[in-house]
C-alpha cells in the first residue's frame, strides 16, 4: 500500500496532475447523472410512440426490475436521512447493476422492430458512454470519502436475451428501459442531494 501510494503521489507530481476537489467532483458527477436520466427519458418516449396496444397489459410490473431488491429511500425524509456513504454506495450499486443490461440493449437495439431503431441505438450507445464515465467518476469520488462508501450491492442481471417474437422483444425492451429510467432518476437524485450536502459553502445553488 505504501509503495502504491508513494508511487501514485510521485506519478501525480511528475505529470503535474492536479487533484480535483470534492465539490468539483460532485458537480461533474451530478451533471453526468442528469444527462443519463435525460437520455433514458427520451428513449422511453421514443418507445412509447410505437407500442403495441396490448403491451401495457402485458408489461411486467415494475417490481420485476432486477434492481428492485435494492432498498432505496421512498420519500424525501427517508432520502435525507441516508448517510452520504450510503447514498454514494446506492448510486454506485445501481450504476454497476446496469452495465450488463445496457450491453444487451445496445446489441438488441439495431434489430428492434421499431421505426426509429437507429435513433434508439445511438442513444443507447450514448447512455453507455455516460454510464461508464459516471462510474469512473464515482470511483474517484469514493476514494476521497470513507472506505465504507465503497460498498456495492450486486444485482446480477439474468435477462439473458429478449424473447424471439417481435412483440415480446419490444415489450421486454420497453420494460428494461422503464427500469433504467427509474434507476437513473434515483442515481441523479442521490447525487444531487449529495452535492448539496457536500457543498455547504454554496448556498446559492442548493
Amino acid at each position: 500500500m505504501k509503495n502504491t501510494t508513494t508511487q501514485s503521489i510521485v506519478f501525480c507530481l511528475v505529470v503535474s496532475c492536479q487533484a480535483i476537489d470534492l465539490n468539483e467532483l460532485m458537480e461533474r458527477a451530478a451533471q453526468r447523472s442528469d444527462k443519463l436520466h435525460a437520455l433514458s427519458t427520451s428513449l422511453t418516449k421514443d418507445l412509447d410512440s410505437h407500442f403495441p396496444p396490448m403491451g401495457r397489459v402485458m408489461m411486467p410490473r415494475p417490481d420485476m426490475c432486477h434492481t428492485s431488491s435494492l432498498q432505496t429511500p421512498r420519500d424525501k425524509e427517508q432520502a435525507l436521512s441516508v448517510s452520504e456513504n450510503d447514498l454514494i454506495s446506492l448510486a454506485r450499486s445501481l450504476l454497476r447493476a446496469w452495465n450488463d443490461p445496457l450491453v444487451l440493449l445496445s446489441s438488441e437495439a439495431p434489430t428492434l422492430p421499431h421505426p426509429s431503431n437507429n435513433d434508439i441505438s445511438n442513444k443507447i450507445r450514448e447512455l453507455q458512454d455516460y454510464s461508464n464515465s459516471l462510474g469512473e467518476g464515482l470511483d474517484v469520488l469514493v476514494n476521497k470519502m470513507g472506505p465504507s462508501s465503497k460498498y456495492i450491492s450486486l444485482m446480477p442481471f439474468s435477462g439473458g436475451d429478449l424473447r424471439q417474437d417481435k412483440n415480446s422483444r419490444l415489450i421486454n425492451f420497453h420494460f428494461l428501459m422503464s427500469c433504467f429510467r427509474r434507476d437513473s432518476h434515483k442515481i441523479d437524485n442521490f447525487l444531487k442531494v449529495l452535492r448539496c450536502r457536500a457543498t455547504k459553502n454554496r448556498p446559492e445553488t442548493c
Partner: protein
Amino acid sequence: MWRDTGLKLILSLILPVVAQGARHTPPGKPKLTICRSPEKETFTCWWEAGFDGGLPTTYSLFYQKENSKTIYECPDYRTAGANSCFFNKNDTSIWVNYNITVVATNALGSNTSVPFDVDVAYIVQPHTPENVTVRVLEDKEGPFLRLSWEPPRKADTRSGWITLIYEIRVKLEEDEEWEEHLAGQQKMFNIFSLHSGGVYMVQVRCKPDHGFWSEWSPTSSVKVPDYISQGRSVWILMAVFSAFIFFILSWIIIMNKNSVRHCLLPPVPGPKIKGFDKHLLKNEKSEDVFNALVNNSFPPRSIDYEDLLVEYLEVSINEEEELILEGKDIQVVGCLKSKSPSDSDSGRGSCDSHTLLMEKCGGMDSKEESSYEEPEVQQAQAANWESPERTDRQVGSPDTSDGQVNACSSDISSSIHGPSVNQRQGTLELPRQDTVPDKLSPKSRSHHHPGYMESLGECCELPIAGAQHQLEAARLQNHSDYNIASLKQQSETTGLGYVEVQKVNKENQLVLKPLSIHSQGPLHGSCVGAGEEYSKVNGVNKDNVLLLQRQREMAETSQSCDDKEKEGVLEQSCPKQQQGKTDTHGFAATQLQESMCLTTSGYVDTSTMMPTF
C-alpha cells in the same frame, strides 16, 4: 289534423317529465386527467366526470401501490378542489408506481375509469417563483435592471431534494413580444441596454431538473429613468463638431467664392482676335463679323516689326562708299557695299553679307551703276520710286543680264515699288533715280532665272511682301543720313524707320509714310485697306510684267475703306490677269512668269512657277 298536432304538443311536454325518471343510467366513465406534484412530496390527481346518468353521482378514487395489493382510497377530496384527490406527504411515495382509478357511482350503478399509472418522480411541476423583484441599478455604462426572486415556498432546493432551473422574460410595456432568457439555477438576473425612460415588465418561472415548467409569475414592472448613454453622447458630440467644421468650411468657401469658382470652373477663354466681336455672331451675319474684323484690325496696320521676328534686310551705305562706287565699274545692281567692315552681321540677312555683295558686284550694267550713283547725287531731291518709269524702261529692256544676279537685288527691285515718298510732305526725300528702272530691268530679267524666286525665298526667307519691306528700309537707308534722319523724325515709334505706301500720286510717285506702331486707321486722308504697305500683285500681263494692284478706289475715287477692302478681298483669282488695271494705274510690273498664279491676297504664289528654261 288539429287534433294530431295538439296531441303531439301535449306529449312533447309531458314526456320529458315522465321520461326523466326513465332516463337514469349509471354514470358515465370518469377519466383521470392529470396528476401533479409540486415538490416531490405530495401530489394531486384530477379527473373529469362523465355523464352522470341523470342522478347524483359520486366519485371516488382508489389507488394501489406497486408492491402491495392493498387498494386505498383517496385520503383527501377537498384540498385540491372538485374532482380531485390530494395525496399528502404520508401517502406519497416516490419511485413507486401508483395505479389509480376513479369510480363514478350513482343510484343506478357505477363506472370505473381507466387505470392511470403514476410515478411521483415524473410528475413534478413546481409552483411559480415567489417574491419577484426588479430594481434599476446604475453602473458606469448606464442603468440596468436587476431581477431577483425566490423559489416556490414548498420546493426544497436547499437539501438538493429538488433542483430548479429558472427562466425570465422581459418586455417593454408597449411591446408585444417577450424576450426570454434562461437563468439556470441562479436566483437573480441582470438586464442591460435599456431604453431610456421606458417601462419594463418581467416574469419568472421555474422547472425541476426532470419535470414540467411552472406557470409564469405575476408581472413586475419598473420604469427606467431618463438618461443619455455614453455611446449616444459621443455621437452627439461628434455631430456637433462635424456641424461646426462644416459651417466653418462653408463660410470660407463663400468668402472665396470667386476663386473657388475660378478653380473649379475655369473660365472659357474668349476669342483673342482683335476686333472680333462675339455679339455680332448673335446676329447671324457673318459679314458683319468679318467686316468688323477687317475694319478694325485686319490687316494689322501698325506692326511692331520686332514682334514679327522677321529678319529684315538692313542695308546701310556710307557716303564714302557711295562715292567710291561711283567711280567704279561695278555693275551689280543694288550691289550695296553698305557696310563698314566693322559692321556686325546682326539683324541683317545673308543678303547683306559682305562677300556676297562682293561676288555679285561684278557684271553689272553700267546703268545700274549709274543709277546706283544717283541717289547720292540727288539727295536733296525727292526720290521717285517711280515704278511707272521703271516699268517703261523695263518693258523695253527685256535683256537679261544673266550673269550673276543678286537675289537681294531682285528683292530690292521688287520692293522698290513699295515705299513712296511724298514730295510735298517731305516725309522722305530720296534722290531721284531715273535710272533706277534701268537698274531694275536687268533685275527683272533676272526673274527668268529658274531659281530666282527660290533664291529669293532662300536668301532672305521672306515672302515678297516681307522683302519689300526690308528693301524699302534698305533703300531708305541707302540715302544720305539726312534722309534717314528725316525719316526718323517722321517715324514716331518704329525704330527701323519703315515706311508704308500711302498712295501713288499723279506723277506715279509712291507716296510713302513712315510707319508707326500706333498709327491705325486711315492714313493721311486716304483710306488704306488691307495690304497697304505691300503692293499686291494683280497679275502678270502678256509681257511678263508683274501687275501690281493698288486699291483702285483709292486712286480713282474716295470711297469708303470698306468698299476698298471688299474689293481687295474679292481680288484676283488665279490666274486672272488684270492688265487693264495695271495700265490704268501705270504700275510698273516686274517681269514674271506668265503662269504665275496670284493668290487672293495679291502675293505671288511661287508654287506655280514654271521655269522658262
